[in-house]
């Protein structure tokens, strides 16, 4: 009986695991099938679970909104935010991780305190501020506020704190400036942290909705997700067209995830901090 259990155990475990996996993937298949169905197909029972390769839905959905512009905006906003957040995180992470100075603990506490403020709370005052400085409906309001990342500073600081401090002292003796030291020695050594921060900020920016939805009003500066929500609001019953739009707006994120899967998992561990 013991041997039978040893054989049945792993097999059962695998079967259950595959069922769980397929359940999570189900909605992806469902939206793909719907996006390729003829309009009449989606009103049948039982629903067809195989695609009909009806590409006209994609053409219709693509023509319904200025997607090229929306994608361009999203990429521009995401890349600018990543560059800014990585630069500010590396600089501050280096300051907190390597340099010893008066007030270090106090300043770092301020950084941690920033974590306590959720974005929802900031919508009202930041809207008023953006209104005052004429930043409503611009790229700026979608980039600059996200150019500082507590998670990023925290992670880079941890990486720097793990390096021998002499590394930076030695280079300093050679006369290289702090900034040059940081760029030539520091950044390559904390590259894993930089990649995780970049990916984290990029995904946050790409998937953002509430913030751009509140702060912007014209498609010339809006990101894809806001455009998709607008399309949904206007064509809420065109399920085949909506499914096509969902598919082509989500594909870039999925491709990025599949290409950089390992870093996503490391990123999740890093977010958990010290749970490695």
């Amino acid at each position, binding site marked *: 009986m013991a041997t039978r259990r040893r054989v049945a155990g792993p097999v059962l475990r695998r079967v259950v*695991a595959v069922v769980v996996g397929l359940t999570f993937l189900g909605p992806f298949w469902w939206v793909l099938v719907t996006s390729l169905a003829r309009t009449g197909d989606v009103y049948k029972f039982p629903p067809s679970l195989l695609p009909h390769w009806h590409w006209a839905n994609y053409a219709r959905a693509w023509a319904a909104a200025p997607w090229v512009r929306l994608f361009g905006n999203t990429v521009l906003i995401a890349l600018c935010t990543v560059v800014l957040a990585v630069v500010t995180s590396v600089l501050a992470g280096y300051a907190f991780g390597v340099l010893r100075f008066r007030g270090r603990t106090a300043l770092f506490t301020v950084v941690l305190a920033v974590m306590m*403020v959720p974005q929802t709370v900031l919508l009202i005052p930041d809207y008023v501020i953006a209104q005052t400085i004429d930043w409503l409906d611009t790229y700026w309001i979608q980039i600059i506020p996200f150019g*500082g990342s507590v998670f990023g500073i925290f992670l880079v600081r941890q990486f720097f704190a793990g390096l021998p401090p002499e590394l930076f002292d030695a280079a300093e003796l050679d006369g290289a400036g702090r900034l040059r030291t940081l760029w030539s020695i520091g950044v390559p050594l904390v590259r894993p942290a930089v990649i995780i921060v970049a990916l984290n900020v990029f995904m946050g920016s790409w998937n953002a909705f509430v913030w751009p939805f509140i702060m912007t009003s014209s498609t010339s500066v809006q990101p894809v997700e806001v455009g998709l929500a607008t399309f949904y609001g206007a064509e809420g019953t065109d399920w085949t067209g909506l499914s096509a739009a969902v598919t082509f707006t989500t594909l870039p*994120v999925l491709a990025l995830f599949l290409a950089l899967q390992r870093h996503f998992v490391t990123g999740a561990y890093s977010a958990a901090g010290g749970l490695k």
Partner: protein
Amino acid sequence: MATTQLDRPSRRGVAVRSRRRSRDRSGPTAVLFSLPALAIFAIFTILPTAYTFVISLFDWNPLNVSQSTFIGADNYRKLFAHSTPSFAASALTSLYFTAGMVIGGTAISLAIALLLSRGGSWLSGVRVAVFVPHVTPLVATSIVWVWIFNPQFGLANAILRWLHLPAVDWLDSSSTAMPAILTYSLWHEVGFTVVIFLGGLAVVSGELGEAARVDGANRWQEFWYVTWPQLRPVTLFVVTISTISSLQAFTQFFVMTEGGPAHATTTLSYLLYQEAFVFFHTGYAAALAVVLFVVTALFTLLQFRTRRSTLS
């Protein structure tokens, strides 16, 4: 510009390298380096938080700020007054959603993590499948689930019909709308916590479990008395981050139900959005924001605590 300014003191300090001196030399550099991040935090997070408190004390006129009048704690008194939906009702709705996400999310992700742990590379494909929803944009996948929950033609009711069960109105009924949104949100979030739990399980001692089995413990006893206690810090972490993120959840409510039907899914975050940006009751919405801030801050402090205990 920064380089030349920083070079000078460093050359001067080469001869004597006391801790005290290096501290003095690093000061300006450190301030300069942390300034960009701190400036962004100050302008867009710290000052605005204080500003929210200020706004919450005014009958705020969003179209003409100079016409706002100071009304003291009136907006906070309004929290307990009768309105539709009331603060109390939406606080309960938030509690419903948060409890569902925390309890359901922790249980499901722990179960999946246990299923996938020690499974070798074969099960890593399943892990990817479970994680994928987490990277998808909320707007896009919320739309997919609205279609899944479509009462006439959706996948959910097709499955029920196939099982000879009665159809459900899902998002159109005030009793099933929240369970439907919870199902979507769990599908979206669970992958992240599964990975966290897998990380926790990887460092759980296998020897202790083996010892328990030698002593005659069965699988369940081994989990309950040996594995689970070792996972406590990780669980506490998962519970606090799920609480914080569930309290902020907005997009799925906006796309799937717009807070309805009959306010059944109007959470605090949704009420805040509605009061501030649909009805322009900015002062009242700011009072809601202050409440949300206090609750979130408390849970963040708790999270710092758990993180520290995990590290030590």
